[in-house]
């Protein structure tokens, strides 16, 4: 068995798996990565914005060559009430400079490119291959089965994404709950790059991110996103699964997306475009308490499979965590190979490495965000409240009240009490 034993088998060729494979192959280790899609990225969906800044300095010049779409130079947020909205647009010199801190991305292109670099480093990638189960012997993971074959490895790194079926098989975590997950649905809409530049006030290489919150999710946990790519727009919704399953919501997920597209804050931006893809994927709510156990005997977990994702309703971040947790999982395997010890204790260095990095630090820092946001007031009351206030401030239909009395009319004693006593404590956790 020793002869045909890999140093590491990696399940899943998303960003976490590819980062782990690149790092191990770069250090001359024998790596096999298994991916069920026709190519890496074929099954993967993101919003998408990747913060490249924290990844610089890792993976040689990968990020300089990667097929990134546009550098996000304009950050917009749109609060949506049934018949009104308020949009705030922000930019500054550092956002506008190129290279920028974050880029829109399309995963089918990005992951495919990354996979090529991984193969150049010497790792073997088997696409079109679904892993069927882990092989566990005497409490240790010693390999996997796929299509009737059994393959052995000193370590298995599970990078199988949000549903995390293999970490569950290994007993490292339980199934995901509706309360801790959301559904993301998205359309790619092709649009003339010139129109994108004009509509968003950006140059060829620059782009915009517009996030929506309020009525578009029927006032429940979640939000909408719009990212400009080079020649297309990524438009989608993220809807809390538990929140959206509740009674009182009549519309379906596809109907919610159609309604969103028709909103006057969205339609003029996508008009004339052509939908070319329709995708969906579960999104983690992501909080420290929901993390998987990160390692066991012969096994490590990285990326969404481990629970490294932050979903604050309107923004989702998971890609940087996937990349860096894959990287640290690879370092942990390298250390275990030096000691020739693949037990849980030897692999626990993975958690130590993560704890020193932004991956676990962010996860701890933001652990209460999702819980505090899981509160319909933030997704229904406030967007409407702000829009109603703007309505009165801008309305002229006779004698016009001064600004202060208008504010007083909206900020009644009851509203102030709720803001101070009900919501302020929650806001402090943001």
């Amino acid at each position: 068995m020793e002869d045909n034993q890999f140093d590491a088998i990696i399940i899943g060729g998303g960003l976490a798996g590819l980062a782990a494979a690149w790092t191990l192959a770069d250090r001359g280790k024998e790596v096999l990565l298994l991916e069920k899609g026709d190519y890496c990225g074929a099954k993967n969906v993101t919003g998408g914005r990747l913060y490249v800044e924290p990844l610089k300095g890792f993976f040689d010049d990968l990020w300089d060559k990667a097929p990134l779409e546009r550098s996000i130079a304009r950050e917009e947020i749109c609060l949506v009430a049934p018949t009104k909205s308020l949009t705030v647009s922000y930019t500054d010199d550092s956002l506008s400079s190129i290279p920028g801190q974050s880029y829109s991305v399309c995963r089918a292109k990005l992951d495919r490119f990354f996979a090529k670099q991984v193969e150049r480093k010497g790792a073997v990638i088997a696409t079109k291959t679904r892993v069927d189960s882990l092989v566990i012997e005497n409490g240790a993971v010693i390999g996997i089965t796929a299509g009737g074959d059994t393959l052995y490895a000193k370590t298995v790194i599970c990078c199988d994404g949000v549903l995390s079926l293999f970490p569950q098989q290994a007993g490292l975590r339980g199934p995901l709950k509706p309360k801790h997950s959301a559904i993301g649905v998205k359309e790619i809409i092709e649009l003339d790059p010139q129109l994108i530049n004009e509509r968003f006030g950006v140059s060829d290489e620059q782009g915009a991110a517009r996030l929506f919150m309020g009525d578009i999710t029927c006032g429940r946990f979640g939000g909408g996103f719009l990212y400009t790519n080079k020649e297309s727009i990524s438009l989608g919704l993220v809807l809390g699964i538990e929140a959206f399953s509740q009674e009182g919501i009549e519309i379906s997920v596809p109907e919610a997306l159609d309604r969103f597209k028709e909103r006057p804050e969205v339609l003029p931006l996508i008009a004339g475009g052509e939908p070319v893809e329709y995708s969906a994927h579960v999104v983690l709510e992501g909080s420290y308490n929901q993390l998987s156990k990160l390692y066991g005997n012969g096994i490590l977990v990285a990326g969404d499979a481990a629970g490294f994702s932050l979903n604050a309703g309107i923004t989702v971040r998971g890609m940087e965590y996937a990349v860096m947790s894959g990287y640290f999982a690879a370092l942990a395997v390298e250390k275990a190979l030096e000691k020739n010890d693949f037990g849980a204790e030897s692999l626990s260095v993975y958690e130590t490495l993560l704890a020193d990095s932004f991956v676990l630090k962010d996860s701890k820092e933001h652990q209460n965000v999702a819980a505090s946001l899981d509160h319909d007031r933030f997704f229904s009351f406030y967007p409407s409240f702000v829009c109603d206030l703007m309505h009165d401030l801008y309305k002229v239909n006779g004698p016009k009240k001064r600004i202060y009395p208008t504010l007083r009319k909206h900020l009644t004693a009851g509203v102030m009490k709720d803001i101070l006593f009900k919501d302020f404590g929650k806001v402090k956790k943001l």
Partner: protein
Amino acid sequence: MSDVLSLKGNVKSKLGLNVFKESSEFHIEIKTDKTNDKRLFACVRLCPAELYSADEQGCVVLSTDGCLECGTCLIICGDEVLSWNYPQGATGVQYRFG
């Protein structure tokens, strides 16, 4: 109206934009005695590909053609109600953008 809305209300046509590779197996199945489980009715509204529907007997039926492999139904129902797996390698949806 702009053509960007031309597929409104027509999930089948939206799915037609995607590349799917056929599979001989059903990768998701409703367990036999669970077809009227309450959780399945939530899938009727939440499945982004509209693959769940309620029949006249008050049971939920599923067709897996056009499944986006998103995992929402598994999270809603759990493995008490569904036997759920990803489709075999080289089958199912293959995103070109993602």
